[in-house]
């Protein structure tokens, strides 16, 4: 056990110091968290997030602790306004939070510059949104290859990998079509292909089937489950749908900014 922890500490120090995510400085206490993080891919501790619109202050997250293991499919469920999407955004580094710490694959997000965080997202994370959020001016294959181009993959290689990703979600036939020419289910498949094309260690999915009918939602979920099995990729879902929750490894319930 001691050896494992030491290895984890070494690995984390390597990541944090060599890659410069902490600017070369090891922060007090970070070694323990880093060691913990080495066992799970997502480790969140005491996250607090408040929205302040001037007139109203909303305490969206009130000290959330969460741990997700590698290859796990976790669902976050709860009533509207309980902080599910806010938690997902904080975990994914899309949103800042006031207090707490988030480590993804041992890397602490807090304190990372916007550019570093963006680079990290491009390489290590994939996203699936309820409203697909494909760029309407690009074709399916162009949408899928965009994260690869951002990560510095050559245009030719990006195109090849994008087509492969589309093949995984059975969308090769519609590769040249623009999002407006695709059905909701097809668009969501393209979004999944875009999320997975970079082979990220974790995929964040915010209500991925929210805009789909039951049959299409089942189809999309079967694709996701297959990919999870084949690639051992971690999926974190935000969903309202108990049927989707039932398909996942674990479901975390939230209420009023806390995990219950």
């Amino acid at each position: 056990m001691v050896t494992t922890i030491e290895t984890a500490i070494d690995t984390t120090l390597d990541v944090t110091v060599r890659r410069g995510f902490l600017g070369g400085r090891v922060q007090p206490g970070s070694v323990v968290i880093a060691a913990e993080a080495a066992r799970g891919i997502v480790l969140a501790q005491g996250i607090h997030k408040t929205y302040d619109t001037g007139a109203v202050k909303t305490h969206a997250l009130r000290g959330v602790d969460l741990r997700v293991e590698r290859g796990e499919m976790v669902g976050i469920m709860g009533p509207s306004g309980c902080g599910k999407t806010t938690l997902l955004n904080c975990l994914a580094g899309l949103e800042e939070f006031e207090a707490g710490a988030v480590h993804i694959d041992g890397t602490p997000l807090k304190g990372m510059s916007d550019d570093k965080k963006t680079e990290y997202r491009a390489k290590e994370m994939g996203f699936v949104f309820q409203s697909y959020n494909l760029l309407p001016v690009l074709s399916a294959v162009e949408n899928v290859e965009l994260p690869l181009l951002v990560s510095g993959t050559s245009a030719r290689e990006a195109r090849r990998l994008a087509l492969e990703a589309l093949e995984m979600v059975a969308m090769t036939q519609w590769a040249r079509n623009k999002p407006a020419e695709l059905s909701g289910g097809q668009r969501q498949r393209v979004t999944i292909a875009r999320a997975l094309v970079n082979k990220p260690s974790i995929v964040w999915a915010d209500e991925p089937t929210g805009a789909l009918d039951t049959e299409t939602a089942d189809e999309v979920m079967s694709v996701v489950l297959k990919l999870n099995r084949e690639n051992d990729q971690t999926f974190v879902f935000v969903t309202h749908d108990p049927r989707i929750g039932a398909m996942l490894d674990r479901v975390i319930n939230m209420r009023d900014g806390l995990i219950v």
Partner: protein
Amino acid sequence: MENIFGIPMGSLAVGLAAILGILMTPVIFTVLFKRVMFRIGVRNIPRRRAQTVLIVVGLMLSTLSISSAFGFGDSLNYSVKKGVYDQLGPIDETVAIKGAGGVGSASGMTPFSEAVYAQITSALAGNSSIDGYIPSLVSQAAAKFGVRTEPAAQIMGVPADQTFQELRAQNGATLAGLRAGEVLINEKLAKSLGLKVGDSVQVYAGPSPVQFKVAGILPNGGLAGTGPQVTAPLLVVQAAAGLEGQITSILVSNRGSVEEGEAGTDAAMTTVKAATAGTPLIPVPSKQDGIRQAESIANIFTTIFLVFGLFSVMVGVLLIFLIFMMLAAERRAEMGISRAIGTKRRHLIQSFLAEGAAYSILSGAVGSALGVGVSWVLISWMGNLLAGLGGSSFGFDIKPRSMIVAYCLGMIVTFLTVMFSSWRVSRLNIVAAIRDLPDMKVRRARSRSTAVWGLVLLGSLALAVIGWVNINALSFWVGTSMTIVSAGMLARRLGVPERLSYSASGLGLMTACLGSFYLDRYIKRLAELGGGIEMFFLFGMILVTGAVWVAMYNAGSLITGIAALFRRSKTLAPVLKTAFAYPLAYPFRTGLTTAMFALVVFSLVIMAVVSSSFTKDAAGINQWAGGYMVQGTANQNNAPQAHELAAKLSADPALRNTVAGVGMVAMYSAEGQQQGVLKTKAYGAVILNGADSYFMANSQYKIKVRAEGYANDRAIWEAMTKDPSLAVVTANTVQTSEAFGESFPFMIEGLKSDDKSMQPVTVILRSPISGKSAAYKVIGVLDTNNMLASAALYTSMAGLERVAGHAVAPGQYYFKLAPGVDEVTAAQAVEIAFATNAMQAKSQTQAYNELNATIMGFMTLIQVYMGLGLLVGIAALGVIAIRSVVERRQQIGVLRAIGFKRRMVQLGFMIESSFIAMMGIAIGAILGVVLAYLMTHDPAFSGGTAEFSLPWLRLGVIILTTYVAAVLMTYLPARQAGRVPVAEALRFE
């Protein structure tokens, strides 16, 4: 201004106000009876203030452009009229020897016997429309005080007891109170020579100089003159000029004040014409002519500014259209839901009209007010330009009537576009709008549009044919271009691929327009369809539409190539992919903005290149001046003769090795009539110039059209030296195809300045004084582009005597300089040496440069004016950028989520705007240069006098300014895009 395009301004104001009232009826109806739709429409205005400001700025440009053109015209009219009143004072009509130029020209200075005055006064006496009449003698006269000389002065003599105008000096001295040897001078001469009351001034008006004592200084204007002038009793001036018993004109004043007198011109002219019948004299309604000329000048300039301003107006129209398309796109889902819950199409139109009307009223008011400011800047600029050429001072005056016309016109243009846009955006598919899907084409609608475009094609074709048959350029070109456009539209609806049909149409438009410059040499009718200044705008529109169409459907291939160049860049590869995709995905929006930039840059570039192409180098100036690089005029009453010239040139050390030779030309006011034409016209006044043998032998003036049988220009000059019955005419004496070609009393028919050769033309010239006549054979037409510009004939001195009946003293001197001599120094030496002859000499390089500076200044003025359109283009880009950030907020969030850094998002927006701006700039610049090239090589336009030349610096400034302004305008929205909070953007609906 009283008229524009032949329509009285008063009627225009009433008519336009009525049209505007009718157009605003639906808005008034909405305000009164559909308050909900009105509120829905106008509530959008304060919601996004920055966008509202940009919209108002864009929309006001039409009104600003029109109101500034009218303001400029009014001020010009006022200034020229004021100049006429100042110059003429109480004089309404001038009676002088018949001549081509009227008062102030040679005809107004040709002396005649005072006895003629006595002869006609009996007929004028007691006439109720006439206030008074006096004889006058005006002579060119150099004035000298100490070491200072004023060679451009004149001396005027009127009866000492005249009651026309009170000539009272500041010290109380009057004409009637002058003692022997005393004169009055005006402020201009006093200032020029530094004269004070009591000083002695030497005046060279006749064979011998006369010394006068200055008794008083008169304010400038009227009889006291606006140029440097000595005023004295008639007898004194007659003696000084050596013209005893002679006068040069009879001045007539109508009843009423200086301004009111013009109203009685017709009645007075009838009386004076009757009184002068049978004499060599002719009355000229000087004041009325001056006022009409003021109106005409104001009209020409207003037309120029209005036509060039059309580019700004058109760009403004495109902006309004673009804004409404974008507003509709923004509110598409909202409109779809409104329609779904029971809102009718007309309600959507009403709410858009309400919004559009509010923008229009606001922007019309701001535009009119700013237009007044712009016209003030324009008139001040124009005043400064002409001040260098001795023009009168310019005042600012703008008529409320013009403002009403400008406001209504601007509002109508804006509002019509708003109406069309509102109608178009209301045609949405409810389901597609709610679900944010592209509108689906309905088969029935498609077949209907096929029929509509078929009809448009036929109508356009008919319009083109009518234009061709009736030689109406506007009808022909509008018809032709619409035929090409509708053919493309029809082809598309008949199943031809979009890219092919629209690219072919675009290419067709460009080919038709540019090809006409080549084909008009072979197809006579095409050359006849040259049209007026408005064709410049129409051609610009046709070319830009064609080019933008081609670009929009083919730019994809080009940018794929550009993107491929940066495919290895981690930052640029993804950024370029999105930055290029957006403009191409919205071809309508991108096309409109590109067209705006292209139109503005096109108009600026063509103006710059054409100006530069007409500018001459030193060799060109030498040819323009005929090789006589110093030219002078002298008082004809005291002109130096050949022997006198030779003696002074050899004796004066400053001239001995400077002047290689002098050519002399004498001028005579004659009347001419062309022979051998189907309908013989009445005799028309024309100047007959007699040149001496030196002038003929050394002239380098180019002869544009030579009679058959003469191998070169030299052969023409030599033939004229030998044969006094031969003559050449200036280009102004023959017909011109230019839009602003002037018409003179004597014009030769059947001959054009751009003809290749000619058959000799016989003309009869006669003296209006003696009635003596002689026939001349015209064997050439001088080039348009030289100093001998006015309407005149040139023959030998002996040829001139055939009509004059006696030797005529030369008045013009053409100095050929020795190599390497400085022209300005030589001109000064000539003026000093011939001061007693009142010689005014000028370096021709200096004269050309001054003239050219004024022309270039005016061109720059128009360019700056047209540059107003640039503001619209930039505002459009700003509107698009701001709208894009709002529209794409969620997409920006996605880009940031998947790895786009802030600066990449920002860079994407900047590249996107740059792409649109650069495409517009490239299209405008290329088309401008190509059209300018064709224009300068087209004899019908340039008269063969232009040398195509690219003003690189000016072009660079135009292109760079446009680009930098466009990029700066996008910077803030782009920065805003980069700073969009990711999670918030992803939640944005």
